């Protein structure tokens, strides 16, 4: 049976005036997943998130959350979402506790829950300190605390590690893992750092210039970790023509790359090149890491 989808977006497009920001993207976020929404800066991640939260106007009915259409079930859907968009929105003149309290009043949440949240995000000792005096990491954690306050089923976090030092990044990463494993949240987290997402995500969507170029589980993404044969000759330009006859060849950084099939294939390529008068300086097998897969996915768009 197919897993329940918490977010389901179908052919979503969005423009700021003439500029098309999202181009027919389709997203499926399964329940209980940590969904890494990856893409370079300016690829449309925040726009997507703002559309998911009904902050940007979308007149179509192609966004569904918890199986319900967003425009006609706005408040009911928002009850199930906690969000942190861009930099955390905090009242700097209020303490950490009071920032949570201002939201708790509207949502009818008691003080005990505020104390619990402060504990989860590790801010109990700094509860009375003004948020304006918090470090960036503490502000991010308070932002996540605000998102968690109503105990939502879905957490949407937009670049939660942005601007943090390595320690701060580790803290947030551990917190996200904890929220997923101990509190069973579905977490939709956007980032421009593949390495970051790779460490925590169970599912990945890769957005580039408004198009979703990949969506699948982290295992599916990793299965793309194919290997290449890297070749360097005295005349790469001509060698490309020769090898293209029987292989898919990419010329990159003074190297020729051919998708690896077998050891025999390496020997065969070497022989072909030598027999045709090329000097082979190097020929070796190289496994692609996720970073280069990410680059392939985003740059072949």
């Amino acid at each position, binding site marked *: 049976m197919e897993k329940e989808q918490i977010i389901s977006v179908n052919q979503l497009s969005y423009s700021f005036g003439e500029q098309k920001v999202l181009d027919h993207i389709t997203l499926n976020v399964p329940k209980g997943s940590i969904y890494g929404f990856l893409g370079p800066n300016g690829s449309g991640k925040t726009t997507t998130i703002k559309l998911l939260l009904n*902050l940007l106007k979308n007149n179509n009915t192609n966004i569904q959350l918890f199986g319900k259409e967003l425009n006609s079930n706005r*408040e009911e859907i928002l009850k199930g979402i906690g969000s942190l968009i861009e930099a955390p929105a905090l009242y700097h003149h*209020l303490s950490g506790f009071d920032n949570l309290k*201002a*939201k708790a009043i*509207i*949502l009818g949440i008691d003080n005990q829950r505020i104390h619990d949240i402060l504990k989860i995000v590790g801010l109990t000792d700094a509860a009375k300190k003004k948020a304006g005096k918090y470090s960036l990491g503490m502000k991010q954690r308070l932002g996540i605390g605000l998102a968690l306050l109503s105990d939502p089923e879905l957490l949407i976090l937009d670049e939660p590690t942005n601007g943090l030092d390595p320690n701060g990044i580790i803290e947030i990463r551990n917190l996200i893992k904890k929220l997923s494993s101990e509190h069973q949240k579905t977490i939709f987290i956007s980032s421009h750092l593949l390495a970051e997402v790779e460490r925590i995500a169970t599912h990945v969507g890769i957005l580039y210039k408004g198009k979703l170029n990949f969506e699948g589980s982290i295992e599916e993404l990793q299965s793309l970790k194919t290997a290449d044969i890297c070749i360097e000759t005295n005349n790469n330009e001509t060698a490309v023509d020769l090898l293209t006859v029987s292989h898919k060849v990419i010329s990159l950084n003074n190297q020729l790359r051919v998708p690896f099939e077998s050891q025999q294939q390496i020997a065969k390529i070497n022989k072909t090149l030598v027999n045709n008068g090329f000097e082979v300086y190097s020929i070796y097998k190289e496994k692609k890491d996720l970073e280069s897969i990410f680059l392939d996915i985003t740059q072949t768009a």
Partner: protein
Amino acid sequence: MKTFFLSLRSEYFKSRNTLSFWGAIILPTALCFLVFLGFYLKTEDIVSRFKGVPANGNLIWSQYIGAIMGPMGTLLLPVYLIFMTYSVNSIEHKAETWKSLFSLPIPKTTVYFSKALYTLLLVLISMVLFVSLSLGLGLLLGKLSPQLNMMDADVSKISKDLLQVYVKLYIASFGIIAVQFLFSLIWQDFMKPMGLGFVLLVASLIAFQWEYSYLSPFALPIRSIMEGKKELVFFTKELWISLAYAAGFFTLGYFIVTKRSVK
């Protein structure tokens, strides 16, 4: 309805330690105490103006109340309104919390109208303080300086008139509040809403003698109390115009907030 009151409570909670809230208390308190002190310290000068005749309590009451209301209605109140509407919205602009407010599971209209009503309530607090402090300190002045004969005056009529004039002043302020509320809602920076507000206020004061000056919301508070001085007609055209401005601009703000995207 419950969400609306919770939202209103949250507005108070957020602003209770800011100048926008304390301004509503400090302005009437400071002004009333200053005028009280002035009258108390200069009691002899005031009595001497009556040249041996016992001081006329009614006249002194009207001078005393006028000394508070004069600067208030002409300049302090409009300036305070411009500042206060700015600061109520700037809390959200500064903290970039509009996106958080509008992603709460409550209708956008609740967020907007609770903020608008909170602004009106702050001004109401200020007006209530003006009435009670004017009266309370006036009575204290009468006790401390019996030679002013303020206790001999018809205090119940004075209280009634005072209340009526401040209710007029309050309603006449709605126009400025609604206009400035909209300005500070759409413009994040300090200069645009405050600058435009001051320019409009000064222009309205300069054009005060113009026969159509009542059409400017910025001239309405002072006009409402000046009209009131002749004979106490409650619902003058100034009040209707102020209410019309409030209805128009609050509705416009509502459409802007609910229809536009939150950046």
